[in-house]
C-alpha cells in the first residue's frame, strides 16, 4: 500500500470531511427539539425517526466502517469462510422482523431507553438490570475502538502520520454527540451512506471489468489460495459447522448491542421497524459484493503488509487519486456514525441503569440527560486512549469476546416477550454461566472464536458464542425448574 502523501487524494478527503462535518453539525442543531434535557430526546432522538431516517441510521450503524475494511480483509486472507458475513446479515432480518416490534412497543409504552430498562421492568431485578447494562458497555467499548482503527487505516493510506488526525476526528465526534445527541449521527448518516454506496458500487462495477470479469477474479483468488496452501474459494466440508454457527450466532448477537438497540428504540413505530427489516437487506447485497474486493486484491496481486489494507490499497491502485480521496472520506465519516451511536448507547446505559439505579434514584430528567452527555464524552475519550496506547490486537480480542458476552443478554431480553415462565434468578444464573463458560472456552482456545467439540464420533468446531448461549439457556431452564427458585417477582404483565 502507498503511504506517501498524495496531494489530490488528501485535498479531496479533507474537503469532503470538513464539509460533511459542518453540514451535519448545522443540520443537527436546526433539527433540535424544544429541549434536549431529557434522555429520550438526547439519547433516542425523541423516538421520532421514520422509515428513511431509521434505514440510514441503522444501515450506517450496523454495516460499520470497520465492516467495510475487515470483511474484504478476511475474505482476502481465508477465502470462502470470510463470506459468513453474508448469511449472517441475511438471517438477522427475520429475527429483527419478529422480535424487535414487540420489544419496541414495550419500550415505548413504559419509556424504556435501554435493554437493561426493559429487563428491570420485566423481571423487577436490579441485579439483572446491572448485569445487562454492564455487558452492553463492555461489549460496545471495543467496537468503538474498531471504528477508530478503520478510520486510522484510511488516514494512514492518505500519508498522514501520528495520532493527531484521529484525535481531531474524535473531537468533532464528541462535540457532535454532546450537543445534539442521536440526531447528530442521524443527520450525517444520509450523506455517509450515499457516499459509501457510490464508492462501493464503483468498486464492484469497475474493478472486475478492469480485471477481466468476475470469473477471472475468482480464478485468480483460487490460484492464490492454492499457491499459499491455505484458504479456499469454495468452503471445505470441515468448515461447514463453523460457518453456519458463526452466521447464526452473529445474527442473534447483532441486535443485542447498545448501538443497534438504540437505533431500533429511536424509530417511531413497530411498522417502521418491520419495513426496515424488509429494506435493510439492500446493504447486505452491497456487503456481499464488497467482500469480493478481497478476491480482487488477489487478482491485482496487491503488495500489502496488513490484511486491513486491502480496501484502501485497491482504491489507490485502480482509481484516480480524487476518487480514492472520496472513498477514504466515505470510510472515515462512516466510522463517525456508528462510533457516535455506540457512545450514546453506552452513555444511556450508564445514566439509566447505573447512575439512576444505584447512585441517585431521585435524579431529575434534565440531570439524567446531563449524566448521559458527560458519559458519552468519557466513553469516546476512553476509546481514543485505548487505540493510541494499547496494541490493536487487544481491541480485536476484546471485540471478539464482546460478541460472545453480548449474546448472553438474549434470554433475559427476548424470552420475556414470549413467556412469563422465567424469573430473574434463573436468568441471572444463565447469564453468569454463559459469560463464564464462553470466556473460559475462548481463553482456552487462545482467544479464537471457534471451539472444537467432540460428540462421540463427531468432531467439529462451533462458534463459541453460540455454544455459551446454549450453556446459558440450559442453566436458566434448570435453575427455573429447581423448587427453591420459584421465588422472585413474577414477570410484569407486559407480554406484547
Amino acid at each position, binding site marked *: 500500500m502507498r503511504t506517501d502523501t498524495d496531494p489530490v487524494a488528501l485535498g479531496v478527503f479533507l474537503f469532503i470531511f470538513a464539509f460533511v462535518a459542518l453540514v451535519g453539525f448545522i443540520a443537527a442543531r436546526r433539527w433540535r427539539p424544544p429541549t434536549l434535557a431529557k434522555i429520550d430526546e438526547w439519547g433516542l432522538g425523541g423516538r421520532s425517526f421514520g422509515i428513511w431516517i431509521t434505514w440510514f441510521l441503522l444501515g450506517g450503524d450496523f454495516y460499520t466502517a470497520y465492516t467495510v475494511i475487515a470483511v474484504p480483509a478476511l475474505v482476502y486472507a481465508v477465502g470462502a469462510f470470510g*463470506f459468513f458475513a453474508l448469511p449472517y446479515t441475511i*438471517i438477522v432480518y*427475520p429475527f429483527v422482523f419478529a422480535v424487535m416490534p414487540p420489544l419496541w412497543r414495550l419500550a415505548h409504552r413504559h419509556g424504556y431507553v435501554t435493554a437493561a430498562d426493559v429487563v428491570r421492568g420485566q423481571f423487577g431485578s436490579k441485579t439483572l438490570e446491572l448485569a445487562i447494562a454492564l455487558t452492553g458497555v463492555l461489549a460496545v467499548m471495543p467496537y468503538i475502538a474498531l471504528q477508530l482503527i478503520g478510520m486510522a487505516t484510511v488516514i494512514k493510506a492518505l500519508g498522514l502520520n501520528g495520532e493527531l488526525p484521529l484525535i481531531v476526528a474524535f473531537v468533532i465526534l464528541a462535540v457532535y454527540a454532546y450537543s445534539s445527541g442521536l440526531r447528530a449521527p442521524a443527520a450525517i448518516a444520509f450523506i455517509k451512506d450515499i457516499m459509501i454506496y457510490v464508492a462501493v458500487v464503483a468498486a464492484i462495477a469497475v474493478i472486475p471489468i478492469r480485471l477481466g470479469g468476475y*470469473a477471472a477474479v475468482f480464478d485468480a483468488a483460487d490460484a492464490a489460495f492454492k499457491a499459499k496452501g491455505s484458504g479456499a474459494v*469454495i*468452503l471445505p466440508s470441515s468448515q461447514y459447522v463453523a460457518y453456519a454457527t458463526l452466521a447464526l450466532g452473529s445474527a442473534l448477537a447483532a441486535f443485542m448491542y447498545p448501538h443497534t438497540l438504540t437505533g431500533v428504540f429511536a424509530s417511531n413505530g*413497530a411498522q417502521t421497524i418491520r419495513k426496515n427489516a424488509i*429494506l435493510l437487506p439492500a446493504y*447486505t447485497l452491497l456487503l*456481499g459484493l464488497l467482500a469480493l474486493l478481497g478476491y480482487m486484491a488477489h487478482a491485482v496481486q496487491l503488495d500489502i503488509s496488513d490484511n486491513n489494507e486491502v480496501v484502501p490499497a485497491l482504491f489507490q491502485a485502480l482509481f484516480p487519486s480524487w476518487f480514492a480521496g472520496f472513498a477514504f472520506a466515505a470510510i472515515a465519516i462512516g466510522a463517525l456514525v456508528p462510533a457516535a451511536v455506540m457512545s450514546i448507547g453506552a452513555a444511556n446505559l450508564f445514566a439509566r441503569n447505573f447512575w439512576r439505579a444505584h447512585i441517585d434514584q431521585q435524579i431529575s430528567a434534565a440531570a439524567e440527560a446531563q449524566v448521559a452527555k458527560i458519559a458519552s464524552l468519557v466513553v469516546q475519550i476512553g476509546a481514543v486512549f485505548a487505540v493510541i496506547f494499547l496494541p490493536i490486537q487487544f481491541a480485536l480480542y476484546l471485540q471478539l469476546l464482546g460478541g460472545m458476552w453480548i449474546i448472553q443478554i438474549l434470554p433475559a431480553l427476548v424470552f420475556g416477550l414470549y413467556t412469563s415462565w422465567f424469573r430473574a434468578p434463573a436468568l441471572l444464573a444463565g447469564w453468569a454461566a454463559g459469560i463464564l463458560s464462553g470466556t473460559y472456552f475462548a481463553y482456552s482456545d487462545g482467544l479464537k472464536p471457534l471451539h472444537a467439540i467432540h460428540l462421540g464420533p463427531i468432531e467439529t468446531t462451533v462458534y463459541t458464542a453460540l455454544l455459551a448461549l446454549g450453556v446459558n439457556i440450559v442453566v436458566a431452564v434448570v435453575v427455573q425448574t429447581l423448587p427453591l427458585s420459584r421465588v422472585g417477582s413474577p414477570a410484569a404483565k407486559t407480554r406484547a
Partner: protein
Amino acid sequence: MNIWWTRCLLLLPYIGLLYVPFYATRDPVLFGFPFFYWYQLAWVPLTSLLLWIVYRRLPDED
C-alpha cells in the same frame, strides 16, 4: 393460509442458508460467480420478499 403458517415463511432463510452442504459447490456457475456465491446473494432479495409477504398479512397495530 392463516397468519401462523405465513409466519413460518420467516424460517426459510435459516434453512436455506444454515444447511451449508447444499450450496458449498462451484457449479453451476452464473455470470462468473460460483454457486456458493450467487446462491447466497440470491437469498438477499428472496428474504426481503418473504418478509414483505408476512408484513402484508399482519394487521397494522402501531
